[in-house]
């Protein structure tokens, strides 16, 4: 499974989005698509499980979880590529 596929699977399971996952572009605002702050916590924890790392303090900001693209950038930074 690719990084993007894993991210989309995590969002499907934990994002509680109000729109179909297939409709999301890379830069779609996930909070605008219905993801709540509480759901973003679950997304964060599920990403850590899926990629086996823990987000650093500096990564724990709303913008990290704003879109598929920003999540991928965060995962790549934390896993070293």
């Amino acid at each position, binding site marked *: 499974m690719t990084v993007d596929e894993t991210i989309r699977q995590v969002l499907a399971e934990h994002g*509680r989005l109000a729109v179909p996952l297939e409709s999301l572009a890379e830069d779609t605002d996930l909070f605008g698509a219905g993801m*709540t*702050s*509480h*759901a973003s*916590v*679950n997304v964060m*924890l599920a990403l*850590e499980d899926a990629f086996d790392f823990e987000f650093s*303090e500096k990564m*724990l*900001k*709303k*913008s*990290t979880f704003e879109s598929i693209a920003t999540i991928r950038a965060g995962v790549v930074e934390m896993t070293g590529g």
Partner: protein
Amino acid sequence: MNAVGTLRVGMDLVSVDEVAESVRRFGDRYVTRIYTLHEIDSCRGRSVGVDGSDGLAVESLAARFAAKEAVMKVLRPVGVQLDWRSIELHQMTGGWCEIRLSGRAASMAAEAGIDELSVSLTHEASVAGAVVVGRSTSSERGDR
């Protein structure tokens, strides 16, 4: 209005089921990333019996999460995610809660001139909510 400064209000609702699911799915990793030791202790032993909640009253956890979100709406952080644990719902012996800030949350409140926060929590079986009022002595209104 000048006698009391500017008032800021924050409000949030959280699904109790979603919090219960998070506790079941992620356990201590979820609980300790969001709640302080005091909050965990004050929510323990009051559970209404949710499987996998480890004795935690998930409706009380949900109300505290809503309060933390409501405080963030009062503090209005831009581009930063405050540590959830820097906003503590401190349960008083009488049963009500007071808000205690630390770290970045405390410095943001100081920068905004917010010298007083008051919170009201509520929950039913399926949803929990909180309203927070902050009093700012700053004359900054943020108009654009």
